[in-house]
């Protein structure tokens, strides 16, 4: 009891004790100060890098879609069928039609192609292929008609020189016939989004912070080792081959993890950093499309390889003077299974933005490293990204 009282008295007496410092001490300190160091906040830095990458990709996509493509010409055709009024696109269609069959003066300003051109002749498969090949070859070399007088129309044609209409042929009875199979071929070609296509997506993923306390014993010490795993940050690039509503994909990912560790007696306190390169593999299924929204799910696995890691002891740690900082690498491979549920919104014809809640399970790999995946194998995360088609 006396001992405790004495100690308390000593502590109280010394707690507010101050000693005057010599005048030149500050000069000595400032002379020995290290040069300023720029400390990047890693998550902020990588987040900004991901955002810049997304903007660059989006800009490139938007730039490439400025030139009217065959997809747009198909839309013009589709629009013509339902809204044949004298829009610019209708004029283009008319001009292109005039160009194809100059001897027939076709009036197509008020009615659709389907209503204007009666169907009569269904070509054989060989005929269709020949016509189709000729048509596609012609479409690639199609140039505006030099005889066109109307300047606006000429500009439209120049701007939309890729615009195509299916061939319209003249029959024995001097009637015009519309090649339905050629239109279908264009429709299939234009409808990559719904048909076979390659999807390229970029996203950034993060998860929640987790605190994990592990009882441990070290020599004579029995205590708790606490790891606070900060929100991990993942960047992914995925390539997906689509087969209608189904798809299979593969890609590459980079994950950055930061954790704070602390022994209960404050003997060890510090920061752990881990860097992983991953290879995801998955299958996806688009189960709904509502307006510009597409909803899909994906299931797959991922292999993560630790490329680098480091422990930085905090200065207030008792072990600071012994350890300070050291690097390591975890050679164990980390396998995981993932279930994703995604919603994509079509911003432009070639660009979607998507959000994906991800449920992942990281399989035990006997690693000694306390990563978030090691300490909390079941994790929920959320990904934000963009995707495009080609």
């Amino acid at each position, binding site marked *: 009891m006396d001992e405790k009282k*004495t100690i308390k008295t000593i502590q109280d*007496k010394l707690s507010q004790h101050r*000693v005057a410092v010599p005048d030149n001490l*500050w000069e000595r300190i400032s002379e020995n*100060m290290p040069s300023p160091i720029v400390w990047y906040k890693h998550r902020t830095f990588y987040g900004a890098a991901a955002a810049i990458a997304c903007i660059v990709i989006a800009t490139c996509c938007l730039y490439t879609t400025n030139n009217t493509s065959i997809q747009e010409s198909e839309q013009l055709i589709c629009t013509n069928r339902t809204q044949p009024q004298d829009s610019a696109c209708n004029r283009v269609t008319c001009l292109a039609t005039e160009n194809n069959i100059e001897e027939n003066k076709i009036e197509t300003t008020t009615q659709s192609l389907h209503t204007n051109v009666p169907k009569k002749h269904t070509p054989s498969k060989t005929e269709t292929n020949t016509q189709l090949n000729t048509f596609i070859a012609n479409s690639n070399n199609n140039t505006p008609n030099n005889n066109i007088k109307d300047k606006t129309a000429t500009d439209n044609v120049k701007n939309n020189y890729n615009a195509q209409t299916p061939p319209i042929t003249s029959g024995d009875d001097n009637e015009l016939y519309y090649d339905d199979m050629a239109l279908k071929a264009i429709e299939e070609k234009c409808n990559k989004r719904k048909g076979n296509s390659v999807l390229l997506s970029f996203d950034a993923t993060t998860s929640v912070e987790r605190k994990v306390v592990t009882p441990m014993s070290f020599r004579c010490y029995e205590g708790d080792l606490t790891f606070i795993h900060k929100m991990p940050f993942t960047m992914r690039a995925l390539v997906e081959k689509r087969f209608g509503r189904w798809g299979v994909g593969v890609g590459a990912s980079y994950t950055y993890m930061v954790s704070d560790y602390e022994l209960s007696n404050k003997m060890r306190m510090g*920061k752990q950093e881990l860097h992983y390169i991953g290879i995801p593999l998955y299958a996806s299924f688009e189960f709904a499309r509502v307006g510009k929204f597409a909803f899909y799910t994906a299931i797959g696995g991922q292999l993560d390889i630790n490329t680098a890691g480091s422990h930085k002891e905090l*200065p207030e740690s008792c072990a600071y003077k012994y350890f300070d900082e050291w690097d390591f690498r975890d050679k164990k491979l980390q396998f995981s299974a993932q279930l994703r549920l995604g919603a994509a919104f079509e911003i432009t014809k070639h660009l979607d933005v998507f959000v994906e809640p991800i449920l992942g399970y990281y399989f035990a790999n006997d690693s000694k490293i306390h990563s978030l995946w090691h300490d909390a194998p079941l994790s929920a995360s959320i990904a934000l990204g963009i995707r495009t088609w080609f």
Partner: protein
Amino acid sequence: MHIDDEQKLIKACMRNDRTAQKTLYDRFAPFMMAIAIRYVGDDDTAQDVVQEAFIKVFSSLNQYTAKGSLEGWVRRITINSALEYLRSKNIFNSIDDDEVTQIPTMNTSAIEKISADELMDIIASLPTGYRTVFNMYAVEGYSHKEIAQIMGIQESSSRSQYIRAKLLIQKKLEKYL
């Protein structure tokens, strides 16, 4: 100092703002000097320790998590710097663990009577091993197990050094009774 002001000061120090660093120095230097003298025993060495501790503080401010007080954080760095200095002189290696059978008790009333400066002088005059263990156990509140780990000595050595320190302090306190 208000917490917001402290955060602003820390951020300014991290930007290498010399005025902010001088403000932080003015605030903590006397406090750190007192700790350093208590551990190393003389002013000149204490200045070196404080200098080393300040350089660590300024270069590691980005690692300050604000979970505890800034004063506590600075205190810990100063103690570690002092211990590092003592270790570099191989002082802890010469500490023996001879058992001490006598269990002294310090006179609390005598400690209450003397000033903080006088108490500091008494502690500073102790041999290094006694002084270090006494500081860590009685002032900082470490357990003997933790002291043994930090200093790399036996737990029993820590206990015996503390008892010897108490015996010496008690002798010195008798002058004030």
